[in-house]
């Protein structure tokens, strides 16, 4: 059977037609020597992507019974999918069509019409050659699981669970410790503008516990996760729930929280557990437990120095929450009747719309703010270097350190389990700061709360809700997933089983079949990058739609 290739030249309004002589292009194409034995149908159209254009293509394919189609038009980024959808309506397999980019990469970059037409000829000719090497591919459908695994039972994790749990969607909430609430539950209260006490946290914990579509695993850790969006196989080590158990979920939300930087790691700070030096969380815990602030000896406190930005220079980022909570502590101390309160700051961060007003109110009530260059702490002796360069000694009964928030150990472990990218500081890297702020480099995996970067409880709740929204729209119960078709495949006969491809695959989509002694590609995970193909010593891996002859 002779191939019947339909070649459609798009004028794209004046965009292409004014730069490329499409009539000459059509004529030259019809005279190509190597296509003498093939049947060519060459036509031009004003705008192929328009409703009329799509109708025109559909009729052309059906009336002429095309075996292949080439559309010379814009970038595949714009309308490749448009023309693929046209093919899907006809008998022509979409993988027997190709788009040739004669707008962005020819018409718009070459001012001379003759030259541009010559180049377009080469381009379309190459497209015709390629399309003849292409083979029809079929899309597969896979069952998708709508359930959600949430790792971390803090504010962010609980909110993500609450926003996704429903009749058709189970949520498995995994918490490492024996209580829900995360770091927030160790605080004595929230900022006064947020309602001070922790009743909102208690309410959330109660909501999670009574929701019958949320299954909570306490004292549990994730041992292994493999899979892809719609089908993650999870291995849990849940001591309270019969030990090791297996789950299948469609999405994963990682909310592994934060730790505090150890101030003793700094050269200019050294203190012991007997000294009256506390990090903020230790002080919060004390207030929570004793309902007041006192010295380690149990004696009354008359003066407190709060040091901001401890470790900020070393970690390389502002932790965003410390200024606010230091002023919150200050506010508490003032209420307890402590008169001498000093804040040593390098900069003040007032990140939300209420922060500045709140911080100023504490300052107006008598808290002193001193701008310093550096702070030295040796035991309970504190000196600071002022902005003028003077060394000043500052005596106080108690020192409170606002140390930087840093990623937890769990964050690192989970990133290894799931192959998630971390940023320079070790927090989860978002897929795109503005376009996809809570997604990660792996489809179906979301990072929320402080595991994603330093932030307030409000930030954590917003991120958790955003991730919940993504899951609700991406994983619809009962919907099938259609994986990428242009993936790699291993030609069994040639594979020597060297496993080089397993090491180079960035998505962990290749596994080794021990029985057959060969590598096998999981098509649902493969993104078709071709890293394995380039590195296969025996040439046994092939990319569907990007084979060597096609290129």
């Amino acid at each position, binding site marked *: 059977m002779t191939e019947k290739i339909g070649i459609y030249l798009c004028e794209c309004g004046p965009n292409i037609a004014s730069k490329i002589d499409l009539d000459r292009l059509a004529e030259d194409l019809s005279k190509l020597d190597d296509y003498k034995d093939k049947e060519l149908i060459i036509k031009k159209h004003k705008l192929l992507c328009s409703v009329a254009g799509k109708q025109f293509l559909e009729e052309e394919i059906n009336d002429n019974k095309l075996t292949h189609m080439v559309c010379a038009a814009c970038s595949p980024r714009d309308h490749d999918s448009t023309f693929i959808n046209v093919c899907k309506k006809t008998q022509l397999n979409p993988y027997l069509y190709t788009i040739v*980019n004669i707008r*962005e*990469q020819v018409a*718009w970059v070459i001012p001379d019409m003759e030259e541009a037409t010559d180049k377009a000829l080469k381009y379309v000719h190459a497209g015709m050659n390629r399309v003849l090497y292409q083979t029809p591919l079929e899309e597969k459908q896979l069952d998708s699981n709508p359930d959600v695994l949430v790792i971390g039972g803090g504010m962010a994790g609980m909110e993500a669970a609450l926003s996704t749990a429903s009749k058709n969607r189970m949520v498995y909430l995994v918490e490492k410790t024996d209580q829900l609430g995360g770091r927030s539950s160790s605080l004595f209260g929230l900022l006064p503008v947020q309602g001070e006490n922790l009743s909102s946290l208690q309410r959330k914990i109660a909501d999670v516990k009574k929701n019958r579509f949320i299954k909570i695993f306490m004292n549990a850790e994730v041992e292994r996760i493999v899979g892809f969006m719609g089908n993650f196989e999870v291995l849990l080590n849940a001591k309270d729930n019969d030990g090791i158990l297996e789950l299948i979920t469609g999405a994963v939300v990682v909310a592994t929280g934060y730790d505090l930087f150890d101030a003793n790691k700094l050269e200019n700070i050294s203190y012991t557990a007997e000294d009256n030096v506390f990090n903020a969380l230790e002080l919060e815990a004390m207030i929570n437990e004793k309902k007041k602030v006192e010295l380690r000896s149990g004696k009354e406190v008359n003066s407190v120095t709060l040091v901001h930005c401890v470790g900020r220079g070393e970690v390389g980022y502002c932790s965003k929450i410390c200024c606010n909570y230091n002023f919150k502590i200050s506010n508490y101390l003032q209420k307890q009747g402590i008169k001498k309160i000093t804040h040593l700051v390098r900069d003040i961060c007032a990140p939300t719309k209420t922060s500045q007003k709140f911080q100023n109110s504490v300052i107006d009530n008598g808290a002193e703010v001193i701008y310093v260059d550096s702070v030295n702490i040796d035991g309970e002796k504190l000196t600071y270097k002022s902005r003028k360069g003077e060394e000043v000694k500052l005596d106080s009964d108690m020192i409170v350190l606002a140390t930087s928030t840093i990623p937890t150990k769990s964050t690192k472990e989970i990133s290894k389990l799931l192959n998630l990218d971390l940023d320079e500081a070790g927090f989860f890297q978002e897929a795109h700061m503005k376009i996809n702020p809570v997604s990660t480099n792996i489809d179906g995996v979301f990072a929320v709360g402080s595991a994603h970067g330093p932030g307030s409880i409000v930030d954590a709740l917003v991120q958790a809700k955003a991730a919940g929204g993504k899951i609700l729209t991406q994983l619809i119960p009962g919907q099938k997933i259609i994986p990428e078709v242009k993936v790699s495949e291993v030609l069994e006969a040639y594979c020597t089983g060297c496993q080089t491809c397993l090491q180079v695959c960035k998505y962990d989509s290749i596994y080794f079949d021990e029985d057959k002694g060969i590598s096998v590609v999981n098509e649902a995970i493969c993104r078709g*990058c071709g890293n394995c193909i380039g590195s296969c010593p025996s040439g046994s891996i092939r990319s569907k739609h990007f084979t060597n002859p096609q290129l």
Partner: protein
Amino acid sequence: MTKKFEPKIISFLCKWCSYTGADLAGINRSQYPTAVLPIKVMCSSRIDPVFLIKSYLRGADGVLVGG
């Protein structure tokens, strides 16, 4: 009169970055010689060294791998 030599350059462009970059060049109406011929790949890691040799054997003066 001989024509001025213009090198023929085959460029393998990653679909996600450099191919998009080439599109951007078009959108910005930048101009570059006609002798650059792009080939789209899913990722620059797809490039087999054999492609480079083949390009030269078939008359390319230079090969650019963008990714």
